[in-house]
């Protein structure tokens, strides 16, 4: 988690980093320092968590003590919530890094008998801020005041005064607000907050839920304007990668083996470029997973960490299948070099998958990542979504200089399979596998459709899968006619 480095954008506006993975990138460095930020969304969308993380990270990592005025949860509940993120609120309070003031508003107790203002609240806040020399403040959720204070004219002018006071004290603050039906917040808090508004959303499409975050406005700075998926995991919120605004990743010249000596031969005898992305497409049973497993095993043999995401088979199934083609992967698992992550495609939304992938990669820092297959993700979403997700993923992997391999199942009779077509432009190398039956004897064929930056072989060769492993046979002469249709066996089978 601490690895993400905010992209520095030249700006005059000082920022207070939130420490939340991804959010500091979307906001180009954090929330506006010394200003009030509104975080709004429906119940359960993660507002309070975001606010608390901002405070805790501020206190622990950035040396900025914080005060939380909580209008909803008692200190005990809050402490339990923060503990679930792995922080000890009591300890932080003791060290004067964090202070919590639970503000209870009981409408039934309060009768109004004339003019008043909210100086009591101001004094409490000022007292807490002074006691720990706080730099950050969270008011969660200040809208609760609307249920306790009947005179909304007084309340509104007092809220305005409160936000002005926060700014005059140069406090970086988060104010949370419940989403309204047609407005950002139920009570129109957005009217008072001019600098930064972040909206959180939790929606369910086709029974799959996805959380999203959007920076609605951020005065005086550039910021990402998309809706960014985010995940609430064991260690809090992580906002998922970001399509970089520019293509600046460095192209490496180092080469790494594909895991099959004869396939390396087809690629100048050296294999893939490190940090490149490889697409393997093929019809059912053509050996995509075997190719991926060989690549994984080669990486482990070099002592690199390999992260293998499987969306189709369980890890034990893969291990068993690979044993049958002479590949023992168990030893790499034992050595801690090979990590499997099996997920059902429908277990979460596409963005959820992306978040998990992103998070694991950030944690483990692998040299090689395999996603087998991306086809199944299509079942969880439309192909446009898949493409936009893959753009982000590929982009992220390239920036991190991780070599990646994606397998994709194509279907006979569907030569322009949409995902393959959409995704292939992102890929540096595209290996096509197919079935053919030239003389009634079925065989697997492999050729390299493209491989950027190298003089690769254009021949099709037989892929021989046996107990001894994978190897490539002789160059097939009927290749030229067969390759007119990319990635499928239809043309070859028809011949």
């Amino acid at each position: 988690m601490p690895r993400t480095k905010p992209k520095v954008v030249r700006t005059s506006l000082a920022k207070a980093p939130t420490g939340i993975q991804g959010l500091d990138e979307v906001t180009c460095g954090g929330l506006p320092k010394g200003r009030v930020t509104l975080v709004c969304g429906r119940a359960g969308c993660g507002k309070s968590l975001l606010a608390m993380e901002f405070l805790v990270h501020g206190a622990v990592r950035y040396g900025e003590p914080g005060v939380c005025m909580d209008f909803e949860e008692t200190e005990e509940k809050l402490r339990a919530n923060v503990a679930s993120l792995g922080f000890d609120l009591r300890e932080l309070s003791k060290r004067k890094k964090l202070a919590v003031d639970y503000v209870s508003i009981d409408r039934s107790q309060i009768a109004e008998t004339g003019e008043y203002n909210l100086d009591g609240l101001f004094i409490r806040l000022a007292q807490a801020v002074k006691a720990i020399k706080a730099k950050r403040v969270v008011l969660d959720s200040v809208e609760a005041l609307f249920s306790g204070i009947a005179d909304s004219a007084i309340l509104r002018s007092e809220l305005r005064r409160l936000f002005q006071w926060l700014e005059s004290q140069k406090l970086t603050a988060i104010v949370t607000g419940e989403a309204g039906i047609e407005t950002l917040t139920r009570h129109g808090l957005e009217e008072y907050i001019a600098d930064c508004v972040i909206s959180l959303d939790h929606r369910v499409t086709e029974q799959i839920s996805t959380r999203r975050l959007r920076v609605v406005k951020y005065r005086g700075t550039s910021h990402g304007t998309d809706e960014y998926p985010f995940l609430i995991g064991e260690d809090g919120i992580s906002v998922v990668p970001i399509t970089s605004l520019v293509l600046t990743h460095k192209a490496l010249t180092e080469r790494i083996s594909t895991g099959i000596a004869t396939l390396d031969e087809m690629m100048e005898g050296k294999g893939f470029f490190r940090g490149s992305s490889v697409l393997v497409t093929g019809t059912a049973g053509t050996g995509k997973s075997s190719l991926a497993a060989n690549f994984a095993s080669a990486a482990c043999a070099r002592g690199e960490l390999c992260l293998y995401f499987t969306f189709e088979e369980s890890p034990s199934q893969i291990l068993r299948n690979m044993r049958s083609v002479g590949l023992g992967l168990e030893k790499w698992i034992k050595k801690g070099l090979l990590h499997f992550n099996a997920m059902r495609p429908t277990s979460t939304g596409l963005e959820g998958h992306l978040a998990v992938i992103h998070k694991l990669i950030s944690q483990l820092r692998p040299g090689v990542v395999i996603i087998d297959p991306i086809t199944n993700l299509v079942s969880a979403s439309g192909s446009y979504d898949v493409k936009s997700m893959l753009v982000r993923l590929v982009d992220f992997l390239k920036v991190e200089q991780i070599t990646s391999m994606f397998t994709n199942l194509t279907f006979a009779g569907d030569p322009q399979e949409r995902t393959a077509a959409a995704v292939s432009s992102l890929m540096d190398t595209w290996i096509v596998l197919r079935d053919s039956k030239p003389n009634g004897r079925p065989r697997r064929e492999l050729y390299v459709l493209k491989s950027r930056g190298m003089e690769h072989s254009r021949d099709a060769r037989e892929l021989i899968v046996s107990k001894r492993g994978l190897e490539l046979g002789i160059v097939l002469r009927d290749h030229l006619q067969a390759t007119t249709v990319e990635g499928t066996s239809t043309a070859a089978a028809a011949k």
Partner: protein
Amino acid sequence: MAHPDQKLSADMKKSAAKKQTTKASRNDFYRLRLYIAGQTPNSIAAIANLKKICEEKLQGKYRIEVVDLLEKPQLAKGDQIIAIPTLVRRLPPPVKKIIGNLSKTESVIVGLDLQPAR
């Protein structure tokens, strides 16, 4: 008018100790605490209004403490003070809270649940 708070809490303890013995007298004795923040017009009005109402309705059966939060900010948390002025009826139970400068006499009487003087 303002009483030191140390003395106040000592008084509270004493009254708690006396609870059993003087139940009858306790039930119609009013212990009121008024929170203000500096000598603002609302604070001054609230003090005056409160004295007037108490003299009329609770003669001899009340005691008022005024807490200025500018001097004792740490006391705001205990009674969950948000608005200023806030009047807290600490006795008789249950605790009641009313906010505002106490200019609406009827609301104060209802809010404090003051029985008409017998």
